[in-house]
Structures are given as C-alpha cells and as structure tokens.
C-alpha cells in the first residue's frame, strides 16, 4: 500500500532497511571473527603447555634453555623416556598403582552397585534416611576423616601396605552409589516383575537384570575409579613408605622434586605418567563425559 501511495518515501525506507541488514550481516561477521579469534587464541594458550611438556621431554639438556625457545629438538632424544623411567623403578610403581586401582575398582563396582540396588529397588525401613546420610558424606571433605582413618589403619598394622587404599573401596563410595542408583531408577520395574515371574529372586534380579543393563553407568564408575587411583596422591603419600611400594604418582613426585634431575627427564616422566590418563579419556570418552555431565547437571 505504501508503495502505491507514496513511492518516494518507500525507497529511502528500503534503502535504510538495506543498510541495516547489511550492517547486521557485517556485525554478525565481525562477531564470528572475534569469536574465532578468541577461541583460537585460547586454544593455543591451553595447548602450549602440553607441547612444551612433550618438546622439553625430547630435548638434550643443552637445548632446554634457549632464547628464543626451541620447539623441535635436534636431535630428538627418544631415549629420555627409557632413561627417566628407569632412573627410578617406575615399572614397579606402575604395577603397584594398577594393583591398587584394579583391586579398589572391583570393590567399588560390587559394593556400590549393591548399595544402589538396595536404595533403588528394595523396600526396607529407614531406607531413605540411610540414603540421605550417605549423600551427606559426598560433601564431607576428605581432610576431616584423614587422621582417624590413619589411626585406624595403623592400629590394624596396615600402614605401608596397599590395604588402606583398597579396602575402603569394598565398602561402597557414596557418590558412585548415587550415580548407579539414579541409573537403576530409570530401568523399567516391569523387567523385575517379568524376571520374578520367571523365578528370579532378589539376587537374581540384581545379577541378571540390573547389572547387565547398567553397563554404561558401571563403565563410568570404573573409569572414574581408575582415574582416581591413578592420580591419588595424599593417600599413597601417607600410607606407603618404602620406595618399592610407591605408586606412580608419588614416585613421580619423588623424581621431579629431586634437584639433580634435568627438566627433560622430569618432563619425560610427567608425560609418561599423563599419557595413560589421556588415552583412558579418549577410549572411554562417552562414559566419562556422561558421568561428569550427570554430576553437574543432575547432582
């Protein structure tokens, strides 16, 4: 209508609109450019320390300190890795860590899933009260129980053994109980009924129905647990005193705080210690992220 009645007015309006959309497009484009610039710069910043770690780990000692820094060592000293990893019995440390990680992870899978089953599927008095108390301990900072636990384990004569690091895992981890329980709650109760009609008992339902259907959450728990025990520091530091009983984490600390050790060897040991965790992350990425997301969003 405007077009017909006042054609002269229309064209400036159209022109104006055209400029606005162009400007809009320009602003959008500019926004995109800024967005990419920020993200790229940030990505470079967070990645540089990794590159520096690997680069330093492959350097001869003479190229460690240089201005400007040398990124690609020449020659590339692969032998830094075997050198660093045999300077201390790291193979032994890694075996020790795996003994603890596997022992504790098995324990927490069994005991936490049992607890989860009791809280998700069975009816018993005080169930919700017990569950609530258990949830409270998730918030309980570790330092408050550290000393009494140490007293307990030293009374049992377990200091300088792996038992203080493995046995508690066999008595369920409240956070894992919660995680698995939430998963169990999502499984249709009709499955239990069907199994019951087929003659399955309480244990049969847990073992043949719930556990096989819960592989994703059990994988998440296993990943978290292995990661936790690989990284664990203060526990092994307090309980393990003999060098040959050390875990990789405290062995690495021992190695990198030794002022006689060159930074290239320190970085080789650190990288060797980090790589398994990164591999673990990529292998189990799906379960890993699910777990973290669940922790934050629904926890």
């Amino acid at each position, binding site marked *: 209508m405007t077009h017909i009645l006042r054609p002269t007015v229309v064209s400036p309006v159209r022109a104006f609109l055209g400029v606005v959309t162009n400007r809009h497009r320009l602003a959008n484009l500019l926004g995109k450019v800024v*967005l990419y610039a*920020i*993200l790229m710069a*940030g*990505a470079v910043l*967070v990645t*540089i*320390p990794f590159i*520096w*770690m690997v680069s330093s780990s492959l350097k001869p000692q003479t190229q*460690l300190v240089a*201005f400007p*820094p040398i990124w690609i060592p020449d020659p590339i000293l692969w032998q830094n890795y075997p050198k660093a990893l045999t300077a201390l019995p790291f193979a032994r440390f890694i075996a020790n860590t795996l003994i603890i990680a596997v022992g504790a992870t098995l324990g927490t899978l*069994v*005991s*936490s899933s*049992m*607890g989860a089953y*009791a809280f998700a599927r*069975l*009816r*018993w*008095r005080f169930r919700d009260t017990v569950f609530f*108390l*258990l949830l409270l*301990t998730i918030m*309980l*900072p570790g*330092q*408050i*129980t*550290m*000393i*009494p*636990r*140490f*007293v*307990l384990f030293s009374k049992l004569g377990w200091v300088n053994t792996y038992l203080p690091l493995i046995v*508690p895992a066999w*008595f369920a*981890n409240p956070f894992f109980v919660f995680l698995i329980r939430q998963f169990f709650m999502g499984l249709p109760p009709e499955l239990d009924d069907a199994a019951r009609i087929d003659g399955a008992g*309480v244990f049969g339902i847990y073992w043949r129905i719930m556990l096989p259907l819960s592989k994703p959450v059990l994988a998440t728990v296993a990943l978290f647990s292995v*990661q936790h025990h*690989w990284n664990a*520091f*203060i526990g092994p530091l307090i309980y393990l005193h003999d060098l040959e009983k050390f875990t990789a984490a405290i062995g690495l*600390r021992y190695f*990198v705080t030794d002022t006689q050790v060159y*930074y290239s060897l*320190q*970085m080789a*040991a*650190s990288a060797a*210690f*980090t790589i398994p965790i*990164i591999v673990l992350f990529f292998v189990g990425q799906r379960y890993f992220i699910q777990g*973290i*997301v669940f922790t*934050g*969003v629904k926890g």
Partner: protein
Amino acid sequence: MVAFLKTNRQREAMYGWLFALPAIIGFVVFDFGPMFASVLISFTEWNGVTPPKWVGISNYEEIAFRDDLFMLSLRITTIFAFVSIPLNLVTGFLLALLLNQKIRGQALMRTLYYLPSIVPLVAVAALWRWIFLKRFGLLDIGLAMIGIQAPDWLGDPNWVLPAFVVMGLWGVGGGMLINLAGLQGIPTDLYDAASIDGANAVQRLFNVTIPMMTPLILFNLVMGIIGGLQVFVVAFVMTAGGPNNASLFYMLHLYRNAFEYFRLGYGSSLALILFLYIVVLSALVFRSSTAWVYYEGHR
C-alpha cells in the same frame, strides 16, 4: 495371604539391609566414625604410638594464640580461594557460552580446552614448575619476547599465589564442560519465546540463559569452595609452601603437623577448624542462593 505377604516383605527388607550393608559399614567405619573420632582426637596430644593424652582445649588455644602459621595459612588459602574460584567460575561459564555457538571444529576445540583438566595434579605441578622457572621458564621467555620483565613467579612471595591462580586457570575446562552440559539442557522454546517477545541476544543471555544456569553455578561454587580450600598436591609438589611460607596452604600446614611432626591431636584440631570453615562458607552461599538462584517450578 496376609502372613505370606508379611514374610515376603520381611524378606525384601532383609535383602535391603543386606545389599546396603557394605555401604552402611563403610559409612560408619570410614566416614561417620572417623568424624566423631576426630573431635575426640582433637582434644588430645598424640603421636599415634604412645597412648593419647587428654589435654582439653589446649590444641585450640595453641591454634588461636600461638600458631602464627595457622593464621598465615588460613589467610593464604582464603585469598587464593576468593580469587581463584570466581575467576574459574566466570571463565568456565564464558568459555562454555562461546563453545556452545555453532562453530567449525567445535568438538576439537572443546576437547583441547577440556584436556588440561584431566592431567594428574602431580604432572601439572611438575610441568608448571618448569614453565614458571625464573628467566628460563617458558612463561618468562614468552613475556620477555613481548618486552615484559617477568617476576620470579615461584621465588617471589608476592608472585607465588598469582602463579597458582594462573596454573589453576589452565584446568578451567572441567568447569566449562559442566556449564556446556547445563547450557544444552536449557529448553529451546524459552529462547523462541524470548525472541518472539523481541529480546535480542544480550537480553536472552541475561533473562533466559543466566537465570536458567544459576542452579548449576551454585553447584560449581559450592564444589569450588570445598576443593579450593583443600589445595594440597600442587603446593606440596611445586613449592612445598615456599618461598618463605608464601604458599603455605592450609592443608600443607595440616599435613605437616599430622604426618611430619606426628601431632595427630593438633592436626585433628586443624582439620575440624577447616571443616567448620568450609561448612560456614557453604552455608553462607546456600543462604544467599535464595536471592540469586532461579529454580524452575518455584516461581
């Protein structure tokens, strides 16, 4: 029939307790019991070998009046927490906003930002000790190249805490991931509705995104407080509390008293005070949350 039901119920209840038993024992023996024990131990003087001696509140008196390192470590830990936690919270949130945009290489970017947060803390400490090295560290070299005379990060009492903050920021990817999950959980129809009402991007951010994210921000804040006040591994490995006690984090002070000077009673008093501090700060945050956290369905 009724009798049959009753026995069935009883059987189920028995199984309930049975399945929850590991979790209950774990709760009593490793959490609840130690918590109470730590209160008792805190009133004693005890090296863990000879019998404990009841000393009343003298540990607390020493903390309040004679232990200069207590106030120092509390101050250091608090300052670090009050700078580092909000900084990480905001950065993690902004990063998630940016990485939630439709961009090329989104998955790669997210992975790059996330990876530092899974590097084991011992390795983080080893790597950053090398990066922060005076003059020859990567950071000082980098700053020198753009003409900035860098401080002696780990050797200068005024710069050691900022160094810890910078290093902490490297691990911001963990918070980013949780925020990202939260952002993706916001129903798109809320944005559609806002757009129809004429809200622009900034208005949508402040009136939809941020209110919807406040529960998650609260969660991250509380978790940040619990973790931030318990910093140990990085300080233990990187600076051992130095220089001149400038990075003597609270947990380091606690660890030394309990496990280096074998003062289990005194260590327990320190642990309880830190615990109360965490509880009070978290309670304050929860208190304040009614004013700024938006819960859907509680309009």
